[in-house]
């Protein structure tokens, strides 16, 4: 579904991504794990067109590298950015409506889907986004992304700063979203939880992919264990 070949990206003089190549098939959950500053978020930003990159990114066979972000969203790649970035002065429903920008006719249907996945949001429809807890905001951000009818959902650190309880809720929601037919590319520092729900995973270090395998293979890999899981 998504194929990336020799992706390079830099911030000014500093090269952040070096020859990243990866592939995601339809209906998979693929996670990219790695420490802070490894280039995980940069990779997602390059895919969704927020930053410029070199190399080829193709989606369902068509090249999408360096297209403006709004055209990439139209192809079905929706990016849920790190730090949630919900619209704090808008209510829950308004935030979700914003997510339905490209699919106005299906807003009602999509909104029902989101509210079923996140019942918590259904309870707080009229609340202002900025007044919700971090976990609720994360649900809202993912829900807002789902309103865009994604074929591929890019999730950037969805568990960042969440309590263990909300982390579980968010990870189980990701699984549920995947069973609805949405392919998920997950970028995480919470290595254990993300490997557990992923079909396949890549380990990224200082801008390069150093290891790849299925979720369970990597969970049992000695290097992953010592580097990320403290075992």
């Amino acid at each position: 579904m998504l194929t990336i070949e020799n992706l390079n990206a830099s911030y000014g003089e500093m090269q952040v991504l070096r020859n990243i190549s990866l592939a995601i098939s339809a209906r998979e959950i693929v996670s990219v794990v790695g420490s802070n500053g490894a280039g995980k978020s940069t990779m997602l930003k390059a895919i969704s067109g927020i930053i410029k990159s070199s190399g080829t990114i193709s989606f369902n066979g068509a090249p999408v590298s360096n297209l403006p972000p709004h055209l990439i969203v139209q192809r079905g790649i929706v990016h849920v950015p790190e730090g949630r970035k919900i619209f704090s002065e808008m209510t829950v429903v308004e935030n979700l409506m914003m997510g339905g920008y490209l699919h106005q006719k299906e807003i009602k249907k999509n909104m029902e889907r989101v509210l079923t996945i996140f019942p918590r949001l259904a309870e707080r429809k009229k609340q202002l986004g900025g007044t919700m807890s971090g976990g609720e905001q994360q649900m809202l951000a993912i829900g807002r992304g789902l309103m865009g009818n994604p074929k591929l959902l890019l999730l950037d650190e969805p568990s960042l700063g969440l309590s263990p309880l909300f982390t579980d809720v968010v990870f189980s929601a990701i699984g549920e979203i995947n069973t609805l037919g949405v392919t998920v590319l997950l970028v995480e520092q919470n290595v254990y939880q993300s490997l557990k729900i992923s079909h396949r995973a890549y380990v990224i270090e200082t801008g390069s992919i150093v290891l790849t395998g299925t979720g369970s293979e990597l969970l049992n890999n000695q290097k992953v264990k010592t580097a990320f899981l403290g075992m």
Partner: protein
Amino acid sequence: MKPFITIIITGTFAALLPLLIGDNPYITGVLITVLMMAALASAWNILGGFAGQFSFGHAAYFGTGAYTTMILLYQWNINPIPGIMAGIVAACIIALVTGSIVFRLRGHYFGLASIAVAEIVRLTVLNFEFTGGAQGILVTDVALSGLDLNSKNPFYYGMLLVLVITLLISAYLRTSKTGFYLQAIREDQDAAASLGINISQYKNRALLISASLTSVLGSLYAMYIRFIDTNAVLDLRLSIEIILTAIIGGVGTLWGPVLGALLLVPLAEMLRTNILGDALVKAGLVSETSPIGIFLKENLAHAHVLVYGIITVVCILYLPKGILVLFRRHK
């Protein structure tokens, strides 16, 4: 519906005001300036307040409207009404060229570039002959069938009409989808882009609306004063007064810019005519012959920009959302 009704009712009251004042050209003149600044700040607010794109060069659009109408009238004797239309077209061309280049950039580039564009327009006008150069353009006779343009009342109603239209557009934008997209862009540009909103297109729409309205006001001003030069209609000072009016009143609100104009224009007028200085003397607080009294008499008249500055600082420190918040109990 409520804001629309409020706007119409307020507009109707304002339309009846000249009947109460009667024939008092001075008061009418001050009110015209209030209406003009309120409309300018409201038009700026569509771009600066709703979309969060701070333009520091709105004088460019004001001046473009003023100059286009004046040049057409002066050189080719073209009626002001088509002249106003031509002004809108010219302002939109400048806005489109600026916007399509600058809105691609991130951060505060638009603000900086808007100053540059305004200065380019000003220097161009200053150095061409057909624009009157540094001498400006003076038109002694404006004729428009059926209207007595030697009276101030037509301009009062003209400015009021543009203000009401601007407020109606603002009120509509706040409740429309476009308004929500602009708000999303203001709150978080990346998040808005990640939802598929064409950021530069929406910014350009806001800029075009804002620039068109500003240009009409420039045309009206030119017909009203009948003399324009770059200092009057293209100066950076004008751009800044527009911004300050909106900020002090309340950026991003419907009535804030109007409130700002209601406060600042009469204040500037009081300073200019030295009513304030005289009042201090009359109240016995300052002696007319004391050094302070002399200083006030000589300098207070030029001090309105300084006073704007002080009010702005106070507002930013204590009322960052503008004076309008004082009139609301919550939010």
